[in-house]
Every structure is written in C-alpha cells, then in structure tokens.
C-alpha cells in the first residue's frame, strides 16, 4: 500500500526545495508583513494544521478518558510486547537490507557504465506501481507456505526499497566529483573513496529514504495479513473488527504512534547537522561513470534478480491468475463501478489535499519563520501516521461528535487529505519557489486585491507542481485499503476493497483483474514520480 503520507518526493528532496526558497527570498518579507497582506492565508494554514492534529489529540483524549488503570492494563500486556518485538525486528531487518540494496542499485545505475543504465533505473522505481498487498498476494500464491518474519522482511524490502532508491540515486546524481577527485589524489583507492567520500554525502538521502520506508512498514496492513505476520497495524485492525472503536484498539494506536515518533526522532539524530553543499563559485563538473569491467556481469545479475523479484513475481502471478480465471473473472459491471468510484475518490481527494496544502506551501516559501516551521511540522507528523490510526480517530469523532459527517464522502476525503498532505505540500512548494515574488507585487501594484493578485500569478504558475502533487496523492488514494474500508460511504467498493474481499475468500482468480487495473493505473503515475525526481536532481 502506498505512503501513509511520507510521499514519494522524500525529505531529502523537500530540503532541496527549502534551500532553493531561502536563496531566492527577497529581504523584507517577514511574518508581520505577511499577516498584514494575507491574513486569510495564515488563518487557512493554521486551520489546516490544527485539523491535522485532530487524530493525535483524539488518541490523547481517549487515553485520558479511559483512565490510567485500563490504559496500562491494555498497553502493558504480553501481546503488546509480542507485537513490539515483531514490528521492531521487521524495521530493524528490512530497513538496513533496503539501504544496502538501494545504494548498490543506485550506484550501478547512476555512476557506473552498466549497459542499459537508464532502463534499469526506471525498473528500480517501477515496483512502486504495485501496491504492497499485491506484492504479498503474488508471493503467497507462488509460495503458499511463506509466512512469518523473514517473509515479511523479504516482501517489505521488495515493495518499499524504491523509496530509498529514488532518494539515494537523486543524491548520487548531484554529487560534486571534485571531492572524490580530491580523495583519490590523496591516495584513496576506489572503495575507500566510496566509503569515506561518497557514502557520507549520501547520509541525508539514506536517512530520509529510510524514514520513509520505516514509516511505511509501520503503517502497512495487507502485506502482513497475507503472510500471517502480526504487527501493530494488523492488531489494530483485528481489534477494530472485534470491537469497532473499543479502547484496546485506540491504545494499540497510541503505541504505534509512539513508534512513529521514535523513528522520526532517530532520523533527526542520525541526520546530524553537517553541511554537504558545495561552496565557492562555479558549477560542479559533470560526473564520470566508473568502468565496471569484469564486475559488469555481477552488477547486471543483481539488477536482474531485483527486477525479477520485484516485478517478475507480481506480473507472472497476476498473469497466471488472469489466464486461469479466463473471461469469467472480468465482471465488467462490477469492475467498472469500482474503477469509477476509485477514480472519483482519488481525484477528489487529490484536489482537496492540494487546496489544503496551498496556504502552507505559500507561507513556507514567501515567509519562512518559526510559525511556519511549527505549522509545517504538524502536517508532516500527521502525514507519518498510519492510515488506520487516522481512520480510527475520524470514525470515533464523527460517530460521537459530528454525526452528520459520519460515513460521508466528506469525511473520507478529509482522511485522505490528512494522510497525503505532505505529498501535495512538497510538490507545491518546489514550484511556488520557482514563481518570482515580483509578479505578485506587480499584480498588487497594478491594483489587484491580494488574493486576486496571488491567484493570477503564483497560483497559476505553480500549476505544474500542483498537478504532480495531485498525481502523487491520487496514487496513494488509489491503493489505499485500511482507511477506505473503515470510512467509506455506504455502497462504496473501490478496486482495493474488491481485491481484498476476493483474495480474503481465497478467490485469487477473481482478485486478479483488480490487481491488474490498480497496477496499470499506477504505472503512469510512478513514471511521473520518476521523471520528477530526475528533474529535481537537475537532469
């Protein structure tokens, strides 16, 4: 399943957008002038941030209401310990393996003379188009006995390594070769240059990508159900299915949220404060690709093996089930309906997320400051929460307090917007940064009221970024399962829901068309993500 929010364009890319913004910031645009010129934007940004804190506030509120005794009885029990061990081991094993794999693949495709490097680099990103639960479905039907921790590690790595690959390869592409030359001139061999010069420079990218992968592992549901591996997220869904919104589910959610915070904290600690930017005048020379020579074959084999596992297995399995099912499994009415509903939800959710991200993105470019940083971190924290937690909060809040909103399209769209806000934010911010503030001023001086001036200049110019952001959000929504199941209006059946229901009754053939359509629709969006990451890296 796709990002609980983390987003395709990873933190590393986010940071580059911030740098871009800072350097282009005209002096004199401060928080105070901002408040005077565009109070509505500030209010809107604050509103969105407060809204995004709702799920967190809710968990705390439930904990307080439940009372310490019950909370501790529900949290400090062996089952939670088991889940903690499972979830912890999964992250500790899968993330380092994904790091090693991604760095190797990124180096091979970006810095070596491997034949077909461009094609391979696209093939390393393409697994993202396959929802994680479809990866798992493919594996379980191919190797039915697969289960437990190691199966979890294998499929998690396969399903999520492209997030790391994307950030690492983008960083590799931008490295200034002068540093490596200096290392070599000082007598370091190629391996040492890599370890002591290149690797440290990849630190930010690896940290950002690992965080993204880690958060996804915490949030993932479908993948682990197939292989019978219990994590916090699967246990929360179990509790939800047994008791709807009972305190046990909410307390597990509380522990899961703490795990997310631990990951965020670790990333901040490991990331460090070093500066990696090139200083001085002039531009970096373009990089030379290393000659692989005899290492070409093993290099190719690694890429081939990865591609076979990450793309071959799902495509072969889906194909096999489609053949086995024949025309019978193409129930066009049912599939068409699900496709229509999915597309509608994806588009509407993407639109809402983009509109909600707009004020925040604008402020972060035009008037960065303490307020903006605070507001923005709220959005990212919520983006890192698993969908199941956000859905659980919204179900309970709407049932108890805002009943007219219960089971409405509005609520599920809000959930999507909260989950995927960071994706929209990142893309928007990058393109607002490229829209010169002078245009806004010129429009103002020509007599347009502030919001109108904004609309006719910056907002229009940021359209490409908005579109890219919308595509990323839509990709996430299309493959979303847990929150959709919990929040969907009556009569809704998305592609993911239909897939899940068929595969739950082990009718794998009937599930195959849905898997196929999800993958087919995600591929172009993944391509977009790939192109965008190339462009961000300046190529």
């Amino acid at each position: 399943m796709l990002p609980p929010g983390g987003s395709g364009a990873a933190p590393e890319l986010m940071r580059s957008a911030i740098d871009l913004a800072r350097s282009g910031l005209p002096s004199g645009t401060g928080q105070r002038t901002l408040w005077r010129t565009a109070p509505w934007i500030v209010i809107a940004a604050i509103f969105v941030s407060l809204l995004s804190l709702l799920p967190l506030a809710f968990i705390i509120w439930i904990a307080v209401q439940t009372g310490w005794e019950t909370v501790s009885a529900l949290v400090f029990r062996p089952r939670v310990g088991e889940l903690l061990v499972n979830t912890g081991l999964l992250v500790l094993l899968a993330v380092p393996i994904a790091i090693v794999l991604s760095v190797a693949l990124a180096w091979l495709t970006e810095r070596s003379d491997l034949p077909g490097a461009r094609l391979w680099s696209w093939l390393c990103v393409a697994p993202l188009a396959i929802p994680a639960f479809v990866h798992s479905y493919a594996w379980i039907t191919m190797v039915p006995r697969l289960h437990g921790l190691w199966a979890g590690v294998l499929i998690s790595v396969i399903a999520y390594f492209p997030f790391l690959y994307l950030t690492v390869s983008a960083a590799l592409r931008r490295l200034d070769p002068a540093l490596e030359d200096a290392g070599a001139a000082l007598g370091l061999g190629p391996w040492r240059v890599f370890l002591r010069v290149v690797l440290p420079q990849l630190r930010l990218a690896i940290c950002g990508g690992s965080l993204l992968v880690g958060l996804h592992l915490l949030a993932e549901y479908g993948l682990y159900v197939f292989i019978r591996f219990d994590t916090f997220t699967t246990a929360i869904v179990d509790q939800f299915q047994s008791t709807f919104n009972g305190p046990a589910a909410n307390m597990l959610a509380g522990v899961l949220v703490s795990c997310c915070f631990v990951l965020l904290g670790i990333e901040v600690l490991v990331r460090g404060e070093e500066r990696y930017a090139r200083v001085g005048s002039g531009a970096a020379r373009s990089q030379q690709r290393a000659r692989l020579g005899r290492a070409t074959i093993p290099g190719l084999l690694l890429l081939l093996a990865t591609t076979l596992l990450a793309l071959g297995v799902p495509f072969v399995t889906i194909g096999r089930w489609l053949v086995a099912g024949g025309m019978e499994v193409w129930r066009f009415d049912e599939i068409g309906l699900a496709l229509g509903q999915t597309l509608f939800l994806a588009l509407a959710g993407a639109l809402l997320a983009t509109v909600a991200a707009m004020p925040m993105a604008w402020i972060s470019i035009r008037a960065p400051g303490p307020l903006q940083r605070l507001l923005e971190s709220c959005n990212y924290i919520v983006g890192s929460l698993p969908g199941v937690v956000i859905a659980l909060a919204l179900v309970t809040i709407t049932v108890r307090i805002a009943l007219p909103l219960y089971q409405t399209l509005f609520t599920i769209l809000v959930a999507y917007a909260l989950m995927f806000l960071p994706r929209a934010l990142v893309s928007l911010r990058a393109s607002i940064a490229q829209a010169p503030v002078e245009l806004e001023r010129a429009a103002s001086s020509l007599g347009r009221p502030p919001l109108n001036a904004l609309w006719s200049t910056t907002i229009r110019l940021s359209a490409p970024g908005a579109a890219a952001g919308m595509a990323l959000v839509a990709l996430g929504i299309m493959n979303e399962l847990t929150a959709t199941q919990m929040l969907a209006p009556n009569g809704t059946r998305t592609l993911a829901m239909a897939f899940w229901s068929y595969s739950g009754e082990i009718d794998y053939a009937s599930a195959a068309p849905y898997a196929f359509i999800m993958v087919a629709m995600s591929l172009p969006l993944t391509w977009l993500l790939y192109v965008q990451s190339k462009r961000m890296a300046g190529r």
Partner: protein
Amino acid sequence: MRYALSTLAGAAALAVNLIAGPAMAEDDGIIVYNAQHENLTKAWAEGFTKETGIKVTVRNGGDSDFSNQIVAEGSSSPADVFLTENSPAMVLVESAGLFAPVDADTLAQVPQDYQPASGKWVGIAARSTVFAYNKTKLNADQLPKSLLDLADPSWKGRWAASPSGADFQAIVSALLQLKGEAATADWLKAMKTNFTAYKGNSTVMKAVNAGEIEGGVIYHYYYFGDQAKTGENSKNVEMHYFKNQDPGAFVSISGGGVLASSKHPKEAQAFLKWVTGKGGQEILKTGDSFEYAVGKGAESNPKLVPLADLQAPKVDATTLNSKKVTDLMTAAGLL
C-alpha cells in the same frame, strides 16, 4: 462500452452522493449492514429487489465491527437492516435496545429454536462448527473427541483457527455459556500456546489442505463451497463433526434484525420477511453458500449432513456474550 458506462455511473453516483449528501439516501431504498458472505446477501438483495422493486444498498463488514458500530451510532444509525453470520452480534445490538420487534409473519416463518424469545431478531441461516483435518496427516482414530481436547499439550502446534473472526468468537461464546468463565479462560490460554493463527476460515482450510497444519476449527460450509468450485483447496480435507452435545458441535444461528431507528421500517421488515421466506431460504439450498436453511419447511442443500443429525449442544442464543469473549481473548493474548 458497457465498461465505460458503468465506470461513469460509478463516478457519477458518488458525485451525486457528495452534492446531495444524506438527503439522497432517503430515496435510495434500504441500507443493509451485511456481515454475511457477500455473495449470499447479494443474491438475497437481487432476488428481493426483483420481486418488490425496493432498492438495497449493502455495506459489507463483519459481525463484531458492525454490532459495535451500530451501538456506537445509536439511534442515528444509517442502517435499516442488520444481517450477521452469528448470534452474539445480534445479542449485543438487542441488549442496547436498538432493534425494532420483528413482524409476526416473519417470526412465524422460522421455528422457535432459531429465534430468541424476545422476537427482536430472527434466524436467517445456520452453520455448524467442525474440525477440518488433513486426511493424509490424521487418521479418524487420532481425532479429538471434544473441542476441549485441543487444549491438551499433545495438540501443541497441530491445529489452527482464525481468532480475529466473529465465527471463531461465536464458538468461544458457546463454550463460555456451556462451561463457564474460568474453564473458558483456561482453554483460551492453552489455545494460545497450542494453535497457529490464520486470518479467515478459508485460509485455515487452505493451510490444512496444503498440510501446513493438521487440522483447524472452522465452520462446515467452507469445505462444501470449495468442493463445489474446483476443490483445489479442500481435496485433502475431511470434516470431523464433534456431535455429542460437545461445545465443538455448536450450531451458530445467523441472525437478521430491523433497526428501531430505520427510516424505512416497512421496506426493511419486508426484506427480512423475504430472506426468511421461501425465496430467501431457497437460495440457501440452491446457491453456493452451503449454509443451513432454517425456515419452516425449508430444505438445506442435500450435500450437507442434516441439521438434526449434528447433536448440537443446547445453547441459548440470546445470552451469548460477545463483549466478555473479546475481553477474555484479549486477556489471553489472542487479540
């Protein structure tokens, strides 16, 4: 073309829903919270709509989440009808006072044994607990005599179940009623050490069939359903009925009820009447659900062991306690 049309229709329907909001639902027929198998209720809904012209919107889910959901929704529940696979969910909603009395004509269609004395809900189908085992791994003389035997250390690592499902939780609720809280808690504790957890009864059967595990506690119809299709997931599977009034011979009643808060009580009652009547019960006999029919004079699929031969224990469906069961299972570390 048809494909494109229904895609458009799907998008348009949701769009209308957005604009018109809940007001639209008024003319939208009845809303059924369905915890039964999707195909079965789909067949019921289609049959009913065909006969009466009343539209049925189905929201699919599980017994436990829906029953708790209805309680949380209280009097503003959007649901008109609630259908389950097992009785505990019905009891939960009934004890929250959220069911309207079922029409007398409907109650008259179902024998006393398959409805609570309160008349707040009615049995719509039934299913029997079985021990499904792999016949290449177990001989008939090695089978457990009672469900309780599975707590024995000799069964460690040899049997499976789907503890997060309402089906298994209903079996535990019968055990709770028959043997009391202390014995149930002990049994669950032993289960935690002995059993292997799967998600869903179909998955349990598939694992048994593949020889991953020797046996599993599930309901009877998974086997017949698979046999009727390709038999791919049940060819090595044999069914063991505990009989003897054992807790493991528990027959679970699937229930149907009309919500007191229903905005279309007449249509909702008509639907329940249809399901328990000739048309609905006939679908149980001829369809691919393989659940037992419970209507007066209705026959079940001839492939099944007759209900009367199952020697099920006497369990009072109206006092099955789902809350206590999930608490006990949570305490045993199964949830």
